[in-house]
């Protein structure tokens, strides 16, 4: 029977990917807000240059990450499931306040709970591609002859979705057994999870 062990659940590449992506997304949101005229405070031209550089980097990173997910089989962590979903939602809406334990027990084979699976899948299949594709459309708008405002609009809408994801994601990271538990796991790679003995390494 499984017992909780302190094991590595986030590989080195996964952590590198996560934190690099986090920095780039934040940088892109800030420079994007400057380019869109929502904030001021620094040079528009510099924001433009940084935005393009970071966009290029994050695309390269995503290409590596997609490759990694498929070659390692880690993509299976994002297969959506509705089993236990209701319980998880109920936990975040109620149980978390009354001191219940989390209904989903992470294992090495299922390190994400059903809500995480759905939201990360949404990020990876909807928000990320949307922002990536509309960004490339924005950059090449003069070659394609598409309407500048329409392209800009789709990119901005995707950016708002990304910003909202970031806010919720950052907050959800504080909902582990302790406020910093998930954060520590994402940094060190290790967490207490249910492990079948033969899985432990």
């Amino acid at each position: 029977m499984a017992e909780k062990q302190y094991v590595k659940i986030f590989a080195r590449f996964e952590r590198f990917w996560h934190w690099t992506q986090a920095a780039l997304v934040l940088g892109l949101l800030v420079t994007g807000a400057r380019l869109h005229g929502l904030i001021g405070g620094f040079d528009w031209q510099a924001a433009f240059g940084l935005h393009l550089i970071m966009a290029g980097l994050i695309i390269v990173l995503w290409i590596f990450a997609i490759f990694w997910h498929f070659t390692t089989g880690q993509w299976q962590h994002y297969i959506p499931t509705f089993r236990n979903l209701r319980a998880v939602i109920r936990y975040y809406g109620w149980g978390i306040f009354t001191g219940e334990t989390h209904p989903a027990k992470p294992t090495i084979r299922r390190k994400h709970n059903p809500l995480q699976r759905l939201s990360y899948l949404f990020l990876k299949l909807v928000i990320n591609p949307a922002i990536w594709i509309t960004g490339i459309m924005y950059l090449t708008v003069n070659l394609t002859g598409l309407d500048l405002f329409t392209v800009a609009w789709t990119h901005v809408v995707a950016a708002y979705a990304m910003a909202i994801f970031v806010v919720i994601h950052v907050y959800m990271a504080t909902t582990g057994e302790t406020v910093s538990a998930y954060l520590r796991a994402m940094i060190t790679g290790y967490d207490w999870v249910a492990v079948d003995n033969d899985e432990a390494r």
Partner: protein
Amino acid sequence: MVTGMFTRPVRLMCMIASLLALASVAHAQMRESDTTADHSKFEALKGPFETGPDVTEACLSCHTEAAEQVQQSIHWTWEYEHPTTGQKLGKRHVLNAFCGNVASNEPRCTSCHAGYGWEDTETFDFTAQNKVDCLACHDTTGSYVKWPTEAGHPIYEPRDRKSAYRPYSEALLQENSDGSVTHMPPDLAQVAQKVGQPGRENCGNCHFYGGGGDNVKHGDLSSVLVSPDRHVDVHMSPDGANMVCTDCHTAHGHKWPGSRYLGTVKDSSAQMPGFRRSDVLSCQSCHSETPHEMASLEGLKLNDHTDRVACQTCHIPEFAKGGVATKTFWDWSTAGKLKDGKPYSVEDEETGHHKYLSTKGDFEWEQDVVPTYEFWNGVVEYTLLGERIDPDGVVGINRIHGSAGDADSVIYPFKRMTGRQAYDAVHEYLLLNNVYGPEGDTALWTNFDWDKSLAAGMAETDVPFSGEYAFADTEMWWPTTHMVAPASEALDCQSCHAKDGRLANLAGVYIPGRDGMGLTDRIGLLLLALALAGVLGHATIRVISASRRK
């Protein structure tokens, strides 16, 4: 096309290489005469010559077709049929926002005609070949200057002047004991023997002084361009490319490309390595439509702009540079006021510029002027004589065509000249004035009587004048294309990509950084705020419930 055989980078490299080669040759040779003819050795040019037309006849004895060519150019005809609007334009026909009109003022205005003796439009013989002025453009001595009021002639006898205004160069001036200055006539034989290709000064003698003074009219054409520093004009500066006007306005048979009535705002003509089309004048003729560095994202993005933003927009951040101001406002309605029966003037204490003249009214002058930006497709339409105006609005002396929705229009910089000008209060059209004419009793500048001035101006035309007049607000658009700054001084992105930037008022176009997205932004920000509020609320409940459980 031969160019089709090459890929773009190859073509670009060829172009750069050949341009570099051309440039070095040009620099070594262009400014020194490499002509095969020494005009001082020509028998026909030995002189002496009594008048300008005598010199012209000598020129034509070899250059047999020159007069015919000049007589077909706008420099001679002052007439231009607009291919798009069909309007008959040219100095002979249009009204402007400066001295107004040529009709009835000929001997003054025609001092800049490329000919001799246009004193009256009805009687001047536009086919007389010896009336073509060769020397105005081909003098290289600097001593040949058309006298301001002699209908295109220089002076042929010494002339005394008491006023401070000295049209001739120092070498031809003699100070007299009574304070007057004697202007000596230029030595026509010497001038004729030293003719050459036109330099900046030749063109400038007229084009820098349009509107009655240095840089008054264009704003981007002033005496500073005779020898500008790089900041003022990177092309014409002796420290820059040291180009002359005809390096861009390439003459063929005495016709020059470049027009303010029909500007070339786009030029996708094929670029042959080392060659350019000489019948089209645009920045692109030499610089191509993709002039920025292709190897950088910034360069690529800048190249993305060239289909909708004119080169001039970013590369001429200001005009009227180098210390010579341009007139930006001219209120004719106040002209004619006298003090103790005499005309007077009011000067600006700081700049010394006239703020008021009894002859001309009130002015405003500006230096280092930030242009006004509008979409333009190159077409300019005029309010012609007899055309009905709305005197309650701002009357466009001319109007620029184009819009954001028109793919052939680009954002272009302009000098927007404003003022107040006379119109017929009954018929509601603009009026011609007679301002110049020292002998008669009608000229405004001599008699200060608007009724007589307008009646005399209109008498030159078939358009009736009711005798009643008033003054309307006017505006006139002058495309800005000279005084190109070095690349390092070109506008930054945020000059326009900003809420309060240079294009703050340009309508019909989405400019990132200038324009938000209204409802989309409000909804997006609201959802973001709700997400923030949601997590903060959730966190608060967590903290409170956790402390209660303890």
